[in-house]
């Protein structure tokens, strides 16, 4: 190590030492003599020396523009600026993530919209009865919070225009809710895929299923955007001891556990654990509350272990365990090769990601929920990667359900995926289309009562919007009547 001060420097006073030791009083004689010429060295204390470049004081800013020559001469304002930008103040750019947060924020209420009178609040029975078809009902506040927690609302939906979030009951809704109800009564697993054209209301139907599950005190697990799991935008790591290797997505799963815990707090607080989980980082004795188990997930590294333990508890064949709804939106994204890569730099199939594997195991019927429940996936047709096997499987299941001959594979096409076929081999398909004119009328009356549709709702108006919306496609009707320049 070198000595900080060389021996020669020790012979004369150093700048720092003099500044610290020298008293602030300046000898008059020195200052007077220094007035007329540039001093060889300054006797001014260090505190009064020229300010640092770029400091915030006015003198500092001035100093930034001053050019000092080697002989001590100071050039001020002698540089010629031609063209170029005058150093104007730029406004502060948003912080990382702020722009996306602004784009993705969800507003569920518009205080300008008129409150709709006589709007009944949904309860657990409304969506089970045929006679409520074509009625608009509002969501209870408690369920709104739960749905928000599981991210069931999407930023592209028009919740922000109305006073309170409300739902239109469709025949498909009643059908789905009754199937869910039957699955609990028969202790079976409802395995279902919601499909349909763009903007026909697939995500809303899924939201209705989530609503019903919350109202009926099911345990709800929701994956709001399947593409977040396969687009390689969240961390992943191989799960040790799995063959073939599976991958966990720690950060995503930690967030998922927190969402499950928060949304299902009421149900989970009643349940206690039935197994010892020695693999957990924290000791959770048998018959301790399940919320404590969910709380054990503090670090992303232990998230998958905790999630496996939680799933084992919830899906175990124990009396009194509530039914489970496991929902996923954007099915096409998990029916393809993911963007992740393994150690050999090969692409990983989506079904090798542990969370997705869990979902597809239940969707295919390999595993089942002993206390009943539903595994529901919705396709997304706007953001829809090509998956020939999934499309074929959907067509085949539909044809079988209608008692027709299922379409065959194309003989020379190589793009089929046997794992996707396996996952989809026995799921039910619910294909939704446009709504009827009666439902359109009910919806338009709701819009008009909210003050957002400024026309008389008669048969002519209903027919017009129904037709403009591609024979009752909900999203298109919204576009034609709410998101238009003709208000």
């Amino acid at each position, binding site marked *: 190590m070198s000595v900080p001060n060389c021996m020669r420097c020790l012979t004369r006073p150093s700048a720092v030492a003099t500044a610290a030791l020298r008293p602030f009083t300046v000898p008059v004689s020195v200052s007077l003599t220094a007035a007329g010429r540039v001093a060889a060295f300054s006797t001014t204390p260090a505190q009064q020396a020229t300010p640092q470049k770029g400091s915030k004081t006015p003198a500092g800013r001035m100093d930034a523009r001053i050019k000092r020559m080697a002989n001590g001469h100071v050039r001020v304002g002698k540089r010629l600026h031609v063209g170029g930008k005058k150093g104007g103040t730029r*406004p502060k750019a948003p912080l990382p993530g702020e722009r996306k947060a*602004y*784009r993705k924020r969800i507003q569920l209420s518009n205080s300008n919209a008129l409150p709709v009178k006589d709007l009944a609040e949904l309860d657990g029975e409304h969506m089970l009865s045929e006679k409520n078809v074509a009625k608009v009902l509002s969501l209870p506040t408690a369920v709104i919070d739960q749905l928000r927690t599981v991210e069931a609302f999407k930023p592209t939906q028009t919740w922000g225009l109305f006073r309170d979030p409300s739902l239109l009951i469709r025949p498909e809704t009643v059908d789905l809710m009754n199937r869910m109800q039957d699955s609990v009564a028969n202790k079976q697993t409802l395995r279902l895929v919601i499909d349909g054209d763009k903007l026909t209301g697939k995500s809303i139907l899924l939201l209705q299923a989530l609503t019903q599950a919350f109202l009926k005190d099911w345990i709800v697990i929701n994956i709001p955007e399947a593409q977040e799991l396969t687009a390689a935008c969240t961390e992943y790591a191989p799960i040790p001891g799995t063959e073939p290797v599976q991958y966990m997505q720690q950060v995503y799963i930690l967030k998922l556990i927190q969402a499950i815990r928060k949304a299902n707090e009421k149900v989970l607080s009643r349940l206690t654990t039935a197994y010892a989980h020695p693999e957990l980082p924290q000791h959770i004795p048998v018959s301790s509350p399940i919320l404590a188990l969910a709380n054990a997930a503090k670090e992303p590294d232990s998230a998958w272990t905790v999630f496996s333990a939680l799933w084992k508890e919830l899906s175990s064949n124990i009396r009194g365990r509530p039914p489970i709804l496991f929902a996923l939106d954007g099915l096409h994204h998990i029916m393809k090769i993911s963007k992740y890569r393994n150690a050999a730099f090969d692409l990983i199939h989506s079904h090798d990601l542990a969370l997705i594997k869990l979902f597809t195991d239940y969707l295919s019927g390999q595993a089942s929920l002993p206390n009943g429940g539903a595994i529901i996936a919705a396709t997304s047709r706007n953001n829809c990667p090509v998956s020939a096997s999934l499309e074929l499987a959907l067509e085949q299941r539909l044809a079988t359900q209608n008692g027709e001959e299922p379409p065959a594979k194309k003989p020379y096409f190589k793009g089929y995926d046997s794992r996707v076929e396996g996952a989809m081999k026995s799921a039910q398909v619910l294909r939704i289309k446009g709504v009827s004119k009666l439902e359109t009328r009910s919806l338009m009356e709701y819009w008009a009562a909210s003050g957002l549709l400024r026309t008389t709702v008669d*048969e002519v108006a209903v027919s017009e919007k129904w037709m403009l919306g591609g024979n009752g496609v909900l999203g298109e009707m919204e576009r034609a009547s709410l998101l238009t*320049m003709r208000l």
Partner: protein
Amino acid sequence: MPPRLNITPVCRTLAFRAKPLNQLPQISIAARAQARCFSDQTDGTVPQQPAGQLNPLSLPALGETKPDNTVNQQVEPEVPENHQDSNAAALHYLQLVAYGVDPRDPAVEGHKFGLPELPLPSEKHVKHRYDPIIDQMTRLLMKDGKLGKAQRDMAMILNYLRTQPPPRLNPARPLVPGHPAPSHFPLNPVQYLTIAVESIAPLAGLYRFAGLAGGGKAMEVPVPLHARKRRRIAFNWVLDTVKNKPSKGSGRAMFAHRVAEEIVAVVEGRSSVWDKRQQAHKAATASRANLNDARVKAFGLV
């Protein structure tokens, strides 16, 4: 050059007698519809008629009309009431009711959707279906000729305006007289935007006479502006301000939201557009004296 021999005057002298056709037996529309060949019936056979019904397809052609008395004889036997026909008519009426049309109204009898009200309201015309101010502002939003995108932007602006809380007006920046209470603004976003644009529209512009002020300088003369041009200037001021504002987010709604925020700022009197308007008015006032210039008067501008 027109041909010398024109056939039209010759045709005019020909007499057409419509009388025999008028005297043909009147057959109900439903009966005609029933008597038509089905389009999928390729052999051309006519479906069998109920007894006592006249087959309209077997009617004599126009040229070979028989004398009146024979026709009358054919019609005179009373046709028994056909229940199917009356049902069809009733069903037709019901369908009209379902379309929201009063079938008893003589004006709409025989029309599926009734007759249009005349003169045609502007929103029924495909080129004038939007509010004129909204239409003009949309075209000012347009870039690279993408009208569809501009229209979507305008729709998002209007939707933003109706989700914002009612504006708090600034008495120092009065809006156009006669505007409704601010609590009414958000539920009528078209009116909201109109009031904002009309309020900041400058009253006068400057006409520059090149070289008239001497020394190569232009002489500026205030001129009144048409409503359309006033709105154009006002909205362009808004767009200029928006262009210099930083964007808070990303995505397709961002531009529309920035414009809409500026509209709200205009109505609340926070926008710098008000200063631009004041400057424009000052410049117009200062150059009033130039109106007295003889050369300007000779030009006949005002």
